[in-house]
């Protein structure tokens, strides 16, 4: 079931831009999706899609003040203020499916955003300048973990002439860092409320934190179930839920989707419905995946029975939030990210995932331009080698399909599968 095909066939070229701003387009889309409900192999994915359509509609129809954020900003704040969050990086992934990437890349390139920078942001930049994105009322961005996001979002705020709020995140986890981040979060929250004219509602804010905690609990349940053998969900399918990690925490929808997913996994586990007929190897996936059609997962999971049983992006790295100390506990969440600080923290987290999910091998998708994820891989590689865990660094680009080399990718995957068999 390809949602993009569905959209593309109903919202053809010239209509596209206008269609985004038309309520009927979203109604039609939801009807089309609902008509195909039974064809979704996971009802949680179906629910996630309906929720995402609602969220996208809220942004394009400006149903409230739209705030752009990067995917590492704690969205609990935005939901807690009753704002409409919109993540340009996530929109970039959608743009690929909608077939507007080439045009957007051209626009960005023409505007000197060169191909050496992360293509998520290049694409978002191009989409924005080409008029595809809903204009923001404000832009927020955290400086962890990458350099591209703050730069590109600050440029977007300048372009739209709206306030830009940077959450500056240090790499230490000491008391000074906690206070620094907590104070900024508080100030950003009240500045946003002020600038966008939204009344402060303590109850709503606390609800967002509680919703975040509930989502966290359900996600932990999902992750526990994914640790069992054999896997009941393929990585290809599970990847679709990463969106919630990046833009959903603080919303009731995230909690509901994870709850549903946990229930379905539980049921399949009871019924021993396997992700693949014969699980020959278990893999851990680092960073994101390509958002255009490739044969990667087909080769790994369907053909070779090497199931991606967990994604680094689904790792719950933070403790539950404390609604009585909202900013301090959100600071804790931000500072707990395993990608912050010395790479030994990330390595430690990855090794823990290797054990928890009993994986036989690790694949890192080296998204071109993502320095935060790729640059220090050598140390990770060394650590995995010490544990004799096969590792593949698969080079490519999550959203720029011109960088995808099917032949080379296939060769590398086959080599890696050989290595797994040999271990």
């Amino acid at each position, binding site marked *: 079931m390809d949602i993009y095909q569905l959209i593309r066939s109903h919202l053809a070229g010239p209509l596209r831009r206008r269609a985004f701003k038309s309520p009927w387009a979203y109604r039609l889309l939801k009807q089309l999706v609902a008509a195909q409900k039974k064809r979704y192999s996971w009802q949680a994915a179906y629910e996630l899609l309906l929720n995402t359509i609602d969220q996208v509609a809220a942004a394009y129809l400006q149903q409230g003040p739209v705030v752009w954020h990067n995917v590492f900003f704690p969205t609990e704040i935005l939901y807690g203020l009753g704002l409409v969050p919109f993540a340009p990086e996530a929109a970039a992934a959608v743009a690929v499916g909608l077939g507007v990437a080439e045009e957007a890349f051209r626009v960005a390139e023409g505007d000197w955003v060169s191909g050496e920078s992360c293509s998520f942001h290049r694409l978002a930049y191009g989409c924005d300048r080409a008029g595809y994105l809903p204009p923001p009322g404000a832009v927020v961005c955290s400086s962890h973990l*990458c350099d591209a996001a703050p*730069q590109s979002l600050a440029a977007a705020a300048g372009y739209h002439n709206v306030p830009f709020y940077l959450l*500056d995140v240090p790499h230490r986890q000491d008391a000074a860092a906690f206070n620094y981040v907590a104070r900024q979060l508080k100030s950003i929250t009240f500045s946003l409320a002020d600038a966008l004219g939204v009344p402060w509602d303590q109850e709503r804010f606390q609800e967002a934190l509680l919703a975040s905690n509930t989502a966290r609990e359900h996600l932990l349940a999902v992750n526990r179930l994914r640790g069992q053998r054999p896997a009941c969900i393929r990585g290809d399918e599970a990847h679709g839920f990463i969106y919630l990690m990046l833009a959903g925490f603080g919303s009731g929808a995230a909690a509901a989707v994870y709850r549903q997913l946990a229930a379905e996994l539980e049921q399949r586990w009871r019924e021993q419905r396997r992700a693949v007929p014969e699980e020959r190897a278990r893999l851990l996936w680092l960073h994101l995946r390509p958002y255009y059609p490739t044969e990667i997962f087909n080769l790994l999971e369907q053909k070779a029975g090497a199931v991606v049983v967990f994604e680094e992006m689904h790792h719950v790295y933070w403790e539950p939030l404390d609604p009585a100390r909202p900013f301090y506990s959100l600071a804790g969440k931000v500072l707990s990210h395993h990608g912050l600080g010395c790479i030994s923290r990330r390595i430690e987290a990855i090794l823990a995932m290797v054990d928890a999910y009993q994986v036989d091998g690790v694949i890192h998708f080296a998204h071109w331009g993502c320095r935060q994820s*790729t640059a220090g891989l050598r140390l990770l590689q060394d650590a995995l080698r010490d544990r004799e865990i096969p590792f593949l660094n698969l080079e490519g680009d999550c959203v720029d399909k011109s960088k995808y080399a099917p032949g080379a990718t296939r060769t590398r995957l086959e080599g890696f599968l050989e290595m797994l068999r040999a271990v």
Partner: protein
Amino acid sequence: MGALIGWFCHYTPVEIITALGFTPYRLLGREGNTPRADTYLVGNLCPYVKSCLETAIRQELPPLAGTVIARSCNAMIHLASTWPRYGGRGATLVLDVPRRLDEEAVLYYSQDLRRLAGELARLGERQLEDSLLWQAIDAWEEQRSCWRGLLAARARGEICLSGSDVMAWLDGWQTGMTAAGRDKGQAGSATIEQRSRPDFRGRPRLMLAGSILPAELPALVEEWGGWPVCEDACNGRRFLLAEVARETGDPYLHLARLYLGGPPCPRMVADQTRRQQYWAGVVNDYQIDGVIYHVMKFCDAAIYDFRAMKDFCDRRGLPLLRLDGDYTGGGRGQWQTRVEAFLEMF
């Protein structure tokens, strides 16, 4: 001269290093490729950072008692992880530099500087008394103000200096190794008189901008007919900071304010208005005719900063040329054609 402490980012307060009796030594990399560093820092990462790692792996650096790595960008963050294992000898000390300028950031930075001072003190024999730090602050301020005076005279056209000379002097001063570099009396000294280049008058007055500038760029621009009169780079004018009112009391607060309040670098993403104001000041003070922006390959800050510079130049009708560089000394042929074509515009 005390044991050397290496440092990279211009937000590193050298005062703390000197107050403890060490000699700060700026790491500026090397010319040429970086095959060894490439095996440790995979992917498309800042060539300057790789170049510095290469010098360490090849043991081309003087012995360092330690190295302070400010985690100012992704490349530096990864260098901080890699350096102790594959690169530098001596201790590796890391520093978190805020990307904004406000009281919260100043307070946080001051706390981190105090922590850094404690760690550095453990490497040496001296405890860091506030009074020693104030002395170092004054000594550095005296030197910086001489440099600022020199550059101001250059801006007013009272002295006619080549950009390549200024960059070379600054390089020497930052690495702390040359006697001339440590000579705080640079301004007005005989050297400057001897190096005067009145023949440059009449050439287009250029601002060279970027994150870090390759040392040879000003010389090449001069060779091709331009006249760099201001270098907006972290190894150029930005390193000279700006005078701030002296705080009484906490020297770390003073340092935090001094460094974060200096001319903002492209990474200070929450401080972009100030960066534009800074450019406007430079263009007016130095009577800039055009800008050459050096975009360091894979430097996200520079890639987006160039965008902002483009808007700035468009608004003011200033000609702007972008040069992409990889810090290895390659690609000069391409630069030459582009710079010469650019200079023909004037």
